[in-house]
């Protein structure tokens, strides 16, 4: 156990698993000599060489498509998309190919691979370096989609993703890279994909969230404690598959649910979470299911006032929690 930054936990996972499993290799733009634009892959090319840490040409569809070809062969590629926003040219390879390889071949071929991508805003990234793109993928059967919020989960889930027999999208909030640190087990550490984590027990309201927002929600929950409002906080960690039981149980716990995510509201993960609750726990509810999300605008503006307007904050979240508690 050691306290590690989120970014270092990710590197730790890559390094640990690459040492253990020769079939793992990393490819992406600037992942080699440069160690990635965020330095996630720093040091890997020195340790594992050019054959396993590949500076790919600037072409995302090829990065994913080539990774698929290597995966079907029996390798375990970890493709990096430099910013999640730039995953869009690769959507056809991800949805038509990676997600359907096992299904279309009736389990003859499979596609074990990980696609890592930094996402999220609040870092002056403007319209195209700030987006949350999980809503594009979380309805696609055949994929798994993971969004860790702590350093320990980042390591444990990434190791699980690299061992998963199917394609996993692994979204890392770039705002967490050097903001969050926590106790990360050394060596072997696997967090199973598909299990939510109860971050806080409470009795008045339930908040369901993931990613950077998990931290903001916990901050808000702590503040509200002083006001006598007790919040139950569930961190989804995996948004495909969603942990239905944990969602329903958390909703039932207090009967008042707020879903919080950074991505815009319409059609976001919160929609499905709400629908699950409305399907399975409707009569346990004491208040309308609330969602607090990014506004429905194409993306987050560059200028500071509008970026701040877009981004949720512990204060905004606390306000929504107060309202729900008062319902």
């Amino acid at each position: 156990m050691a306290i590690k930054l989120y970014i270092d936990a990710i590197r730790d996972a890559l390094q640990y698993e690459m040492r253990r499993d020769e079939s793992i290799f990393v490819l992406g733009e600037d992942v080699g000599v440069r160690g990635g634009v965020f330095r996630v892959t720093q040091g890997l090319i020195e340790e594992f060489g050019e054959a396993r840490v590949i500076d790919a040409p600037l072409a995302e569809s090829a990065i994913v498509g080539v990774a698929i070809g290597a995966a079907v062969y029996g390798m375990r590629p970890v493709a990096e998309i430099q910013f999640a926003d730039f995953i869009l040219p690769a959507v056809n390879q991800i949805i038509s190919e990676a997600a359907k390889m096992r299904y279309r071949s009736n389990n003859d071929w499979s596609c074990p691979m990980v696609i890592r991508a930094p996402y999220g805003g609040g870092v002056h990234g403007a319209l195209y370096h700030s987006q949350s793109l999980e809503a594009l993928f979380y309805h696609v059967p055949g994929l798994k989609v993971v969004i860790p919020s702590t350093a320990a989960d980042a390591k444990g889930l990434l190791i699980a993703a690299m061992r998963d027999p199917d394609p996993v999208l692994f979204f890392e909030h770039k705002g967490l890279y050097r903001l969050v640190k926590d106790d990360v087990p050394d060596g072997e550490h696997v967090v199973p994909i598909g299990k939510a984590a109860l971050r806080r027990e409470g009795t008045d309201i339930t908040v369901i969230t993931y990613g950077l927002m998990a931290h903001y929600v916990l901050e808000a929950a702590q503040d509200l404690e002083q006001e006598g409002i007790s919040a139950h906080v569930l961190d989804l960690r995996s948004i495909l598959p969603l942990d239905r039981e944990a969602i329903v149980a958390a909703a039932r716990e207090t009967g008042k649910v707020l879903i919080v995510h950074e991505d815009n509201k319409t059609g976001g993960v919160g929609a499905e979470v709400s629908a699950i609750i409305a399907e399975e726990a409707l009569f346990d509810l004491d208040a309308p299911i609330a969602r607090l999300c990014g506004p429905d605008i194409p993306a987050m503006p560059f200028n500071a006032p509008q970026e701040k307007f877009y981004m949720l904050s512990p204060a905004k979240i606390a306000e929504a929690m107060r309202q729900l508690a008062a319902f």
Partner: protein
Amino acid sequence: MTEETSVRHHELGLSDEEVLDMYRTMLLARALDERMWLLNRAGKLPFIVSCKGQEGAQAGIAFALDNTRDYIAPYYRDLAVVLRFGQTARDVMLSGYARREDPSSGGRQMPGHFGSRAHRILSGSSPVATQIPHAVGLALAAKIRGERLVAYTSFGEGSSNQGDFHEACNFAGVHKLPVIFFCENNYYAISVPLARQVACERVADRASGYGFPGITVDGNDVLAVFKAGRDAVLRALDGGGPTLIEALTYRINPHSSDDDDRAYRSREEVELAKQKDALVTFAEYLRQVGVLTASNEAQLSHEVTNEVDAATAYAEAALSPDPADAMKFVYAP
């Protein structure tokens, strides 16, 4: 059988048995194609996509590969290629009838969406050109693993306009990977003729944008395709990197069983193509050099017909998939 050195296939190091095998593969592909077309018209198979006219090019390239070593990511018309790589007439018919036993997809995919891990035939999809980067990835993996093999992928000339073609070729070129990019230029992408589809004279011209050789061959000249293929394979195995081979061929049938080609091309053009059909011209060649004789020709035809009949009967009688099995294999079981 003849022994003179002027015999083309001997010059290429191909035995009489080998060229006869090529011809047999073409014949089987043709017979399967025609049978499936009939079965479609008879209302038995809902959808068919045809290889008719392209079997020569396919046999030429397939025999240049090593079907016990190489990986292929073929496109939907590559029937002769997958036969060479181990799919049988029965496999093909099982897929046509969408039966449970269909080895490509368990009846999940349309015919022409070949796949078989046992035969190193990568499962294909419908969106065109997506298989091209997969072949590059297969080659990359082999290179990382230090395994000596070639990855083959095929596509139509229309599909060479997709971004995936470009990105994959460039990746393979930068990393000098052992890939054969095989373009079956049949002059049409559904209704759109070559000149409205591809801006350059020859699809092979595109290779210069990726730093590797591009060559155009007459796709009806089976031996010329074979030679181009073998040269490319040798280069690839020697670390020389990829090759783009464009085979000029023709799609004799409409695009698919749902298409009607009369709207966009003349009957004369199609008739002319039929005369150049490799199935006709290669047979002539084989007769000339004495490889094909009246007796073995009759026997071959008989064998192939029996094979197709048996495959059809088997597939017709085979079970359909269980409805609820549609839920299986979304993820690893």
